């Protein structure tokens, strides 16, 4: 608990001084911000590189910055990190066999749900005329 608090305080202290990098111009800074937002912090996992205060995230931000200085393209920089840390560093995962479920799983579940709804509604529709007569009335609600 004490540790957690210490980390929190350290985090706040860091956040106020998130590394000032010597950007050439505003466009470069925007590009850097966009790029680091698409990359995952490996230590914290649910934060991106741009927002994370983790030590490694800071190192990787510097690495990204250096690669930009060397004239590397966004794709080259991402590939550089993927080569070292696997697709996991990308917030936008590439489409391939191992990620098919990730990409299309929700759609499949949605379609299955829709199918269930359609079937149920149709059945109700057919059963409804017969059922209306013996349905108890709602009148006389006691409130």
């Amino acid at each position, binding site marked *: 608990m004490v540790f957690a608090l210490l980390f929190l305080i350290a985090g706040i202290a860091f956040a106020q001084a998130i590394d000032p990098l010597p950007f050439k111009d505003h466009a470069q800074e925007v590009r850097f911000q966009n790029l680091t937002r698409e990359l995952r912090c*490996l*230590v914290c*996992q649910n934060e991106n590189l741009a927002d994370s205060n983790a*030590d*490694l995230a800071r*190192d*990787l931000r510097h*690495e990204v910055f250096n690669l930009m200085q060397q004239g590397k393209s966004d794709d080259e920089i991402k590939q550089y990190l*993927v*080569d*070292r*840390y*696997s697709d*996991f560093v990308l917030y936008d995962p590439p489409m391939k066999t191992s990620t098919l479920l990730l990409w299309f799983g929700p759609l499949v579940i949605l379609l299955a749900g829709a199918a*269930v709804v359609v079937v*149920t509604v149709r*059945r109700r529709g057919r059963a409804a005329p017969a059922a209306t007569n013996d349905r108890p009335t709602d009148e006389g609600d006691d409130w």
Partner: protein
Amino acid sequence: MSRMIPFFGFLLLVALFGFGIWWNTQHDQREVPSPLINKPAPAFVLPRLDDPSQTVSRDALLGKPYLINVFASWCIACGEEHPVLMAQGKSIGVPVIGYNYKDDEGDAKGWLAKHGDPYDMVIVDREGRTAIDFGVYGAPESFLVDGKGIIRYKRIGPLTPEVIEKELKPAIAALAKESP
């Protein structure tokens, strides 16, 4: 019968959630599989902890397999791992090279003096630059590198007696079979 459909749907969801919980107990969510397995270890030249004027390079280590163990005095899990390395490090069959990661020289030396030094040699990466090439994202991590400089196995998190028995030793045994 069709009235039971929502119930079966509910059961299906319960089963899915149950599977998810079970799966989570079996897998470490923090573990990022290394894309470097079966690829050459990245080239590095790093100073030794005991004598920073001497450096160790990947190419100088070619010829026989070794284990690189990433550790730091600030790393809590390394404290758990340390006694295991003290007890078993010398008997696993390959030299164990300590990789002192983003540590203070004095802290690292003090740590080894206090808890014992299980390493054949300790190399230092204070900036963590080479560690990025290795895909290190925490400590401890361990890499088994074969005589040709290929990374053959990686353990993320502490080496435990169980991991050494079930994963590391078989990996080392497989290397021994290959080399003439």
